[in-house]
């Protein structure tokens, strides 16, 4: 068999999967990408703005999708996923959800993360009160608010971080890594839409470890005047048409209240059920939570001829998802070259 006929299956058409497909295709190997949704682009396609450079996340994915469409080695199948697979020597015989059967020489898992169900925090009223949204829902709301009259825009918005993260009682013990940054971004974008709005970010810590991250978060506080309150909110209660937030300002050691029009919850990013299922199908390693795990010394590899990239391994920002997609592609390319 001619090496250039080697084919990789990429599962998931978000930023990580697109990057892997583009690189594998660019190296002259075949890349088939399956995306279970109608639309490519994953989470990035649903965002209103992005940290740390305030650029347009949808333009970035559109550019990656266009590259893939223009690459004759890349085939993208939307509304498609993997039904089953078995290994035959060095290849995977895969049955897709459209009943197509295909053979692949390597697999890249790029299925992204899922979200913690915020209604498990009864005290925050998600699901019970209309104006309590998740961070992802708020990105869509920001878009919607572009066309609202100024007097209809929320005047007071409270952002709660670590909802279901860093919680050994009702959630997950780990830090979801990117929510400090996207919360800063969302609060800043709210201020851009309505500079008169008061935005409060309730935090335990703010984590801004990354190139330009600290500067970004500080600019949200100093230039856009978002107020950071150190304390994890205790409860939300409806009061006179507002949502009364109660917390302790742990720097002052006093209870504080905010009568908010809208509350945005940075709910934890968690492993997706379908990722765990795929890991079983392809013999990939998973960690104690269900995120894809790496083979020590091989940070993009999780099994024999199985690689992974992006949020299915752990919450990651868009730049990291691209790095990982490219790195997984490099490993696939190296493998195909040796075969």
């Amino acid at each position, binding site marked *: 068999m001619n090496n250039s006929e080697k084919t990789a299956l990429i599962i998931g058409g978000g930023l990580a999967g697109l990057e892997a497909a583009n690189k594998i295709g660019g190296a002259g190997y075949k890349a088939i990408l399956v995306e279970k949704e109608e639309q490519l682009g994953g989470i990035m396609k649903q965002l209103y703005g992005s940290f740390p450079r305030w650029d347009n996340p949808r333009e970035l994915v559109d550019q990656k999708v266009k590259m893939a469409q223009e690459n004759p080695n890349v085939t993208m199948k939307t509304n498609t996923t993997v039904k089953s697979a078995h290994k035959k020597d060095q290849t995977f015989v895969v049955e897709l959800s459209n009943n197509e059967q295909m053979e692949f020489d390597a697999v890249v898992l790029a299925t992204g993360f899922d979200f913690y169900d915020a209604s498990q925090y009864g005290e925050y009223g998600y699901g019970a009160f209309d104006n309590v949204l998740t961070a992802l829902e708020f990105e869509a709301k920001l878009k919607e608010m572009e066309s609202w009259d100024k007097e209809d825009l929320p005047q007071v918005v409270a952002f709660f971080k670590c909802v279901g993260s*860093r919680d*050994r009682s009702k959630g997950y013990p780990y830090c979801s890594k990117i929510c400090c940054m996207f919360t800063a971004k969302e609060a800043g974008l709210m201020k851009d839409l309505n500079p008169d709005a008061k935005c409060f970010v309730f935090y335990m810590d703010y984590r801004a470890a990354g190139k330009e991250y600290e500067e970004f978060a500080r600019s949200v506080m100093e230039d856009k005047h978002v107020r950071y309150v150190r*304390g994890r909110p*205790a*409860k939300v209660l409806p009061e006179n048409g507002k949502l009364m937030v109660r*917390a*302790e300002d*742990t720097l002052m*050691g006093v*209870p504080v209240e905010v009568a908010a029009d809208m509350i945005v919850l940075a709910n934890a990013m968690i492993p997706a059920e379908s990722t765990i299922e795929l890991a079983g199908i392809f013999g990939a390693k998973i960690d104690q939570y269900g995120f894809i795990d790496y083979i020590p010394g091989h940070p993009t590899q999780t099994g024999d001829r199985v690689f992974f990239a992006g949020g299915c391994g752990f919450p990651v920002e868009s730049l990291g998802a691209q790095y990982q997609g490219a790195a997984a592609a490099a490993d696939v390319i190296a493998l195909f070259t040796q075969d």
Partner: protein
Amino acid sequence: MLNTADFYHVLRIDQTSNSLREEIKEHCHTDIEMCLECGKCSGGCSNAHIFDITPRKIIQLIKVGEEAKLLKMDALWSCVACQLCVDRCPSSINIPRIMDYLREKAYSQGVPASRPNVELFHELMLNNIKRFGRVPEALLSVEFNIRSKQYTKDAEMGMKMFFKGKLNPIPARIKNIKQVQRMFRDIPAQREG
């Protein structure tokens, strides 16, 4: 003259003791080192508005071993054990259990409570549990009013509750009172010295 030490009291945190933390771990099955210092407990505490030291700070004081301060704080006697803090705490720190432990410790060491009559109330309530296996509110109120010499305290509310059938003037004993009494025998909560 102002005593600045009252409001600017420097803690020598290199000279603190871990013993209280360890006692709490053993007796309350709760590890305060798991506390994330988030303040969710204080923010939502039902009675924080009358606490001299709020729950998060209590945990912090245990960390630095400020036992004397903890045993005489008023919050010991204002915690209503509503469990809201434990329910919401991301580390399930059992604050009401810790409060119980500290209260018993303060009581057994004879540290006076900062409010009048709280120990009397505590004593009468435990006594009633010992006798009846429950707390007959009417009897407890009457006993308390007599012993604290506040003869008409809450009498009006008591009458109203009585007429609404919410207060039973005749104390009833639970069926298995022997079990309760055995519990009291097994754990004698007596004052030292």
